[in-house]
C-alpha cells in the first residue's frame, strides 16, 4: 500500500445512500485482501442532514476511525465545507461536475476530481442513487482497485432487485471507473491493488456480531423492541430465526421484551433481549425479577449519550454505573463490557452460558461506535465453545426444591412441563418457592443468591488485558470502544501501556489493583461526564485516578486526540 492507513470519507444527505456506498468500498477492500474499519456519523432523520461514513484501510488490523482523509467523496457542498480541512496534501476530492460545487476554499495541494455523476447516472437508468454507484466506481479507480470485484459485489447487492438494476449499476460503476482512470491517472494511488489469494474475511458491525454471537451461543428466544443503536441486532435475528430454529418476537415495549424473555427462559429457552439506556429504564424492573426468580436472561445494552432521548444516533458510555445499580434492592448480576466487534461476539456467546450457569441476569454493554462500525475479520472459530446449560434438568426429581440451599448458591433448575412442582416467585420465597417473610429464610435465600457471584469470580471471571509494557511511564485505563483508538495511539508510545477492562461485575479488583499500583502516571479515558469506570475502580481498589480524559459529545476518541494527551502528560 502506498499510504497506510488510507482514509476514505463519503458524505452527503441522509437518503443518498452514504452508508451503503462506504460499505461497498469497504467490502471491495476486504475482498482485495486488506483490513478495514468503518465509522458512520448521522442524525436521527431519514432524509436530509449530514451523513458521513469513513472507511479506513490498512495492511494489518485496522480498528479505529482517524481524523485525516485521503479521499473525499462529496455528494453535496456541505460535505466539502465540513471535511475540507481533514484532507491530506495530495488528497483527492471527487464530486459532481454538474452539481455547482464551490471548491474555492479547498487548499491548493488537494486534487480536485470532478465527475459528471448526473450525466452518467441518467445514461444508465432513472434512479438518482445510481450517482452513488458512479462515484464508488470513480473512487475505486483512484485507489487502483479492481473493477471486477466491485461489479461482483453489485450483482450480489442488487441481484434480488432484478437483472435491469444489476446491469444499470454495473454500467454506472464502469462509467465512473473509466472516466476517473483516464482523466485523473496521475493522481491514482496504489492502495487497493488486488493481492493474490487474499484471506477470506468477513465484514461485520457490532450489531451483526451480537446477533451472530447469540446464534453461536445457542440462542432460542429473543424479544427486542427497536431502538438506536441496537436495532440491527433484531434485523439479524429476525432474518435467521427460521434457519436456526430460534424465535425472535417484536414486543409492544421493553417491559414486555424483558418479561417475555424471562417467561421463555423460565420455560427452558436460552433467552436474550437488547436495548439502549432508555429502553433499559423500562427493563429495570425485569432485571431484578430475573435476579430474585433466578431466571437466566441476557440483556445487551447499546449505549448512546444523554438522559431521555439525548443524542440518539451518537455514542456514549454513561450507562455503566446505571447497569451496576439499576433496580431496587440487591441481587447478583454479571455485567460485562465489550471493547470491539469481536469482543461483542465473544461476550454475547459467553453471556448465554453464564446466564444459565448462574441462573441470573447477565448484561453485555456495547456502545454505538461498536454497534454501527464495521471491521474486517477472518471467519470466527467457534470450535472451542461448548454450550453450558448449568444445572438445568429435564427429569422428574423426588422432593424437588427449586431454590434448594447449596454450597455454590446454584440450585437444580427444572422447567415447567416435566412434572416437578415449584414456584418461581418474585416475592421472597423458601426453597420450594412459596412466598415467605420469615427472617431466617429471607437471610438464607439472599445469601444463597449472592454466593453465586463469588463462584463466578473464581470460575469464570477473566483478568483484564494489559497492552504494552508491564512497566510504563504512563498507564491508560479504559473500556468499551475507546480500546480501538487507544491501541492505535499507543503503538507510537513504547513507554505507555493500556489496561482494558471488560468484567465490571464481578470486578477483577486484585489484578486491577496490582497493575494500577505500579503505574507512574494514570489516565482514565471514558465517554461520559463523571468518569464512571474511574469511580468503580476507586470503589473496588481504593485507587483514585486524578487525570480523567472524558468526552461526552457523542463523538469517539480519535487516536490523534489520545496521542496529543499522551504527549502533554509525558512532556514530549
Amino acid at each position: 500500500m502506498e499510504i497506510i492507513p488510507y482514509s476514505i470519507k463519503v458524505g452527503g444527505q441522509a437518503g443518498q445512500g452514504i452508508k451503503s456506498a462506504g460499505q461497498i468500498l469497504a467490502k471491495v477492500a476486504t475482498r482485495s485482501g486488506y483490513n478495514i474499519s468503518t465509522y458512520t456519523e448521522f442524525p436521527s432523520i431519514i432524509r436530509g442532514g449530514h451523513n458521513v461514513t469513513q472507511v479506513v484501510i490498512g495492511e494489518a488490523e485496522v480498528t479505529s476511525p482517524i481524523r485525516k482523509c485521503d479521499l473525499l467523496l462529496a455528494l453535496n457542498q456541505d460535505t466539502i465545507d465540513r471535511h475540507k480541512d481533514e484532507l491530506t496534501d495530495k488528497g483527492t476530492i471527487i464530486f459532481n461536475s454538474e452539481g455547482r460545487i464551490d471548491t474555492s476554499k479547498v487548499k491548493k495541494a488537494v486534487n480536485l476530481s470532478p465527475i459528471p455523476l448526473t450525466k452518467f447516472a441518467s445514461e444508465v437508468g432513472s434512479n438518482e442513487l445510481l450517482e452513488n454507484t458512479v462515484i464508488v466506481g470513480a473512487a475505486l479507480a483512484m485507489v487502483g482497485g479492481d473493477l471486477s470485484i466491485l461489479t461482483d459485489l453489485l450483482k450480489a447487492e442488487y441481484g434480488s432487485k432484478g437483472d435491469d438494476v444489476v446491469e444499470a449499476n454495473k454500467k454506472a460503476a464502469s462509467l465512473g471507473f473509466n472516466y476517473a482512470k483516464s482523466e485523473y491517472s496521475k493522481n491514482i494511488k496504489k492502495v487497493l491493488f488486488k493481492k493474490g489469494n487474499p484471506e477470506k474475511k468477513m465484514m461485520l458491525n457490532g450489531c451483526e456480531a451480537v446477533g451472530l454471537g447469540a446464534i453461536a451461543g445457542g440462542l432460542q428466544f429473543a424479544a427486542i423492541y427497536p431502538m438506536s443503536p441496537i436495532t440491527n441486532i433484531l434485523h439479524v435475528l429476525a432474518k435467521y430465526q427460521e434457519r436456526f430454529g430460534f424465535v425472535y418476537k417484536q414486543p409492544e415495549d421493553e417491559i414486555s421484551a424483558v418479561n417475555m424473555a424471562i417467561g421463555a427462559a423460565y420455560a427452558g429457552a436460552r433467552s436474550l433481549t437488547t436495548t439502549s439506556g432508555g429502553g433499559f429504564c423500562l427493563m429495570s424492573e425485569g432485571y431484578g425479577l430475573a435476579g430474585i426468580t433466578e431466571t437466566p436472561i441476557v440483556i445487551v445494552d447499546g449505549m448512546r449519550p444523554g438522559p431521555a432521548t439525548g443524542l440518539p444516533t451518537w455514542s456514549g458510555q454513561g450507562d455503566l454505573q446505571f447497569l451496576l445499580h439499576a433496580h431496587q434492592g440487591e441481587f447478583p448480576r454479571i455485567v460485562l463490557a465489550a471493547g470491539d466487534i469481536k469482543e461483542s461476539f465473544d461476550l454475547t456467546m459467553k453471556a448465554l452460558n453464564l446466564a444459565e450457569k448462574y441462573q441470573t441476569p447477565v448484561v453485555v454493554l456495547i456502545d454505538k461506535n461498536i454497534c454501527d462500525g464495521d471491521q474486517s475479520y477472518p471467519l470466527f472459530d467457534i470450535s472451542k465453545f461448548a454450550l453450558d446449560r448449568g444445572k438445568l434438568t429435564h427429569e422428574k426429581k423426588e422432593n424437588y426444591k427449586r431454590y434448594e440451599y447449596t454450597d455454590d448458591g446454584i440450585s437444580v433448575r427444572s422447567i415447567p412441563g416435566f412434572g416437578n412442582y415449584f414456584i418461581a416467585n418474585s416475592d421472597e420465597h423458601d426453597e420450594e418457592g412459596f412466598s415467605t417473610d420469615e427472617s431466617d429464610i429471607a437471610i438464607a435465600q439472599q445469601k444463597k443468591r449472592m454466593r453465586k457471584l463469588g463462584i463466578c469470580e473464581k470460575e469464570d471471571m477473566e483478568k483484564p488485558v494489559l497492552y504494552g509494557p508491564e512497566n510504563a511511564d504512563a498507564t491508560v485505563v479504559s473500556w468499551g470502544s475507546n480500546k480501538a483508538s487507544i491501541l492505535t495511539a499507543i503503538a507510537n508510545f513504547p513507554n505507555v501501556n493500556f489496561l482494558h477492562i471488560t468484567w465490571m461485575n464481578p470486578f477483577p479488583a486484585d489484578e486491577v489493583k496490582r497493575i494500577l499500583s505500579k503505574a507512574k502516571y494514570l489516565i482514565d479515558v471514558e465517554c461520559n461526564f463523571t468518569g464512571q469506570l474511574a469511580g468503580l475502580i476507586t470503589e473496588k481498589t481504593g485507587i483514585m485516578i486524578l487525570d480523567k480524559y472524558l468526552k461526552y459529545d457523542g463523538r469517539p476518541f480519535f487516536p490523534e486526540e489520545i496521542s496529543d494527551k499522551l504527549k502533554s502528560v509525558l512532556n514530549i
Partner: protein
Amino acid sequence: MTELKDLATKCSPNWCPGCGNIAIWGAFKNAAVQKGWDNTNTAIVAGIGCHGHIVNFIRFTSFEGLHGRAIPVATGIKLANSRLNVFTFTGDGDCLAEGGNHFIHACRRNHNINVFIHDNAIYALTTGQTSPTSPHGFKTKSTPYGNPDYPINPVALAIASGATFVARAYAGDIQGTAELMIKANEHQGISILDILQPCVTFNKEADHTFYQKNIYKIDSSHDVTNKEAAFKKALEWGEKQIPIGIFYETSELTHESKIPQISDVPLIDNNPERKDLTQLFEEFV
C-alpha cells in the same frame, strides 16, 4: 389423572372469608381435575395483587411475576413451550392499569394462552383504592369524593383489541366459572375471561348479593361469532342486565401456529447447539 388432593399445598388460602378469590381458586381446581391439568402439561402465571397469592395455594408449577406483567411472562412461556396449557391469573388493576398495554397487544396477537381477570373493581391488597373497572362516582380511599373517572369495560376492550375468545364469569357461580375456564383453554388462541369477583372487605357495592341479583346467562340466541352483536352485549350493564357467558368466539390461527420453527415442535425441543457456522459467516464475506 389429577385429583383434588394432588392440588393442595402446605399453605392455606389467606384471602378474607367470603372473598371471590376463594371461589375462583375452587373453580380452577375443579376444572383441572375434570381436564387432567397437571405439572406435566400446565404452567400458571400470576401478577401482583390479592389474586397473585393463588400460586401458593395450588400445586401447579408457576411463576409469580411483577405487578402488571403476567401476560408477557405467559407469552414467553407459551412461545418457549407451546405444549403447555398456560393460565394467566391477573387482577383488574394488574391487567388493565399497570398491564393495559400488554393486554391489548396480547389480544391482537392471538397467543394461545388463557387470561383470567379477577375483577373486583377495587385495589384490595393496598386496602381500597379505585381501579380501572371501578364505577364512576365510586367512593374509595383514593376517591373520597367519588371516582371522577369512568370504568374500562374489559369485555368490550378485549373484543376491540382482537381477542378471539371473550367471556365473563361470576366467581360465586363456581360450576359456571369452571366450565368457562375449560372452554377458554379448549379455544385455540387468546381467551379472555373477565371474572366478576366480589371483594367483601373493600367493595361493599359489588358484593355477592349485587351480582346474584343482576347477572343473567347469555342464552343460545346470541351469535358468538357476530362481532357487532358481541359488542352490543358487552355494553350491557345495569339492574338485571349483567350478561355472563361467552360474548365472542372466532376461529383464527394462533400466533404460535404461524411461526414455522415452532409450529410442529415446541421451541425447547429444538437443539440450541450450533457447531458449524461457516456457511453463516461466509454470508458476511
